[in-house]
């Protein structure tokens, strides 16, 4: 690992362009990495209806990338999970463009919150494999390590010192204390188990306190569901996508009036199944990074950790 003064690095990055400095407050309650790659509201296309000349369709151009400085590892990991949806099969060009343009400077998380449970997912507050550059704040300096080529490029032209053994020791001790502050939920085998629990009665119990607002899904860095809607003006209009939530009844309501997920129970089940059963089945990864945002944002204290514990304890017939 190398080391550098924080201010020096920031000056360097400022010259590079669109620098967004993050601190914890800016990454809460909304996830910055989600907003930066899948904005709340995104223009897909503009159209003009020119009488007999037909329809003119225009795709808006990108706005150029941002350097996101200080992204927490959980948020950086969340984008990797979004990639699984947006960069596989049919590639989503709007997402891809931002993904290619943005540079993520990940900062190890020295002070996890009481709601953090990232260590449940095989990584932790000091995991250095996400984003483009990994950094550790050791007080006087930043330890720094490029993860991707894009990261190395962002650091080009900077003089980096070699980290000393005592720096590394400092990092280790920070790491130990950070990891120690996190409660791990043992979720081993949950995805296999959930597969057999689709019709279990536990869902009604779990969903009781949930009022089916969209807070958890909107603050979640891996929830990506969206709605596409047109906005109509005289002779022109636009089509945009906006965040949507599987918690809303209208999300799955069909025009016929039929709703395959008519109550909060089915919707809650789908949300949990998606993250802990369907995601693993499709991609071999959980659709949750354990950042705890949903726990903090929930108006009725629905705690996903508690829900996982409850689900684990349910006995299912083999």
């Amino acid at each position, binding site marked *: 690992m190398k080391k550098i003064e924080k201010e020096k690095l920031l000056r360097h990055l400022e010259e590079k362009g669109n620098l967004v400095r993050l601190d914890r407050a800016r990454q809460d309650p909304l996830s910055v990495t989600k907003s930066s790659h899948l904005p709340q509201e995104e223009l897909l296309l503009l159209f003009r209806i020119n009488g007999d000349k037909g329809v003119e369709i225009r795709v808006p151009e990108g706005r150029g990338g941002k350097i996101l400085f200080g992204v927490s590892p959980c948020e950086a990991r969340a984008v990797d999970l979004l990639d699984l949806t947006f960069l596989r099969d049919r590639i989503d060009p709007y997402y891809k463009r931002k993904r290619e343009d943005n540079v993520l400077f990940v900062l190890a998380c020295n002070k996890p919150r009481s709601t953090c449970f990232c260590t449940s997912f095989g990584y932790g507050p000091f995991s250095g494999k996400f984003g483009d550059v990994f950094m550790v704040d050791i007080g006087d300096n930043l330890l720094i390590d490029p993860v991707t080529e894009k990261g190395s490029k962002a650091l080009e032209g900077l003089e980096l010192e070699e980290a000393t053994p005592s720096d590394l020791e400092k990092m280790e001790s920070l790491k130990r204390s950070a990891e120690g502050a996190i409660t791990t939920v043992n979720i081993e085998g949950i995805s296999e188990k959930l597969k057999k629990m689709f019709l279990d009665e536990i869902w009604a119990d779990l969903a009781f306190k949930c009022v089916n607002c969209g807070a958890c899904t*909107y603050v979640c860095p891996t929830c990506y569901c969206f709605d596409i809607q047109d906005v109509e003006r005289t002779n022109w209009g636009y089509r945009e996508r906006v965040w949507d939530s599987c918690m809303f009844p209208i999300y799955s309501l069909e025009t016929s009036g039929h709703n395959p997920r008519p109550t909060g129970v089915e919707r809650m089940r789908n949300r949990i199944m998606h993250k802990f059963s369907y995601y693993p089945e499709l991609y071999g990864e959980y659709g949750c990074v354990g950042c705890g945002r949903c726990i903090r944002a929930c*108006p009725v204290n*629905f705690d996903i950790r508690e829900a996982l514990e409850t689900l684990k304890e349910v006995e299912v017939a083999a």
Partner: protein
Amino acid sequence: MFEKLRETARELLSKGEVECVLGFAEGTLPMIYTPYHARKPEEAEKLVYGPFAAPNIATYLRKLKGKKAAVIVRGCESRTINLLISEKQLNREDVKIIGVPCTGALDRKRILKDYGGEIREARIEGEKVIVKGDKGEKAYVLEEYISPSCKSCLYPEAIDPDIKIDGPSRDGEKADFSDIEKIEKMSPAEKWEFFEKELSKCIRCYACREICPMCYCESCFVDSNRPVWVEPGFDYTDILSFHLIKMYHMAGRCVDCGACERACPLGIRLSFLTRKLTKDMKEAYNFVSGLSPEEKPALGVFSPDDREDFIL
């Protein structure tokens, strides 16, 4: 502290008078109780009440439709029940109302902000909230951190409860609307700026709508596409339209419990709007929502000599 309540609940359940007792239990986070319905006598042990209860528990009655339930309520929640009965959403016979004393609901987000660190534990001690976390132990005066809606509450005690749990409660002191009056005195431009700053944080997660016991419509105007009342997206004009129309729908139906404000993940002060409604309805029509289950909603009735001064 909760012995009397738990005993009552236990008795109701074991005698089979009700199928469940709806109230709150300790949550997983400090300073927030979580909605809970005890279904067995032994589950009554979990029931709690107090300033950490953020939602309006009457919201959950719609999940218990057709069941006989006892519900533990504060003043605002009992007024909500009256409204729900008057709007035919609830049968009085289906609920047993247990009134508990209320010292106001805590504005949890303000303590989190003022503490500035990670709070891991909290408890109420007399008139103080004691919190513990990575910044050490700190005490906050409850009265100073109570929800704005509670500060202007006229009826902290449950109205006509079937069972009453005694204890120290807030005074139905004179409502304080001074901050609303301050906004009223602003110029249109200042008002616009003030609300734009506050409301433009909205992410349209509709937590305020879903947590509201009076927002029980099967389909909401904001989801309508024929006509489109509110367009998709996060333009402030759309956000404001949503909140304005929602507020209008709440006129004379809002008990100003403050649950929407406490539910907002972005901490938007919705009570600036709900309290304005409360104030207007009281001033113009001497109307306070939910004082009796027989009362019709304020906009569903009229008086021949209603005020006319705003008409040309």
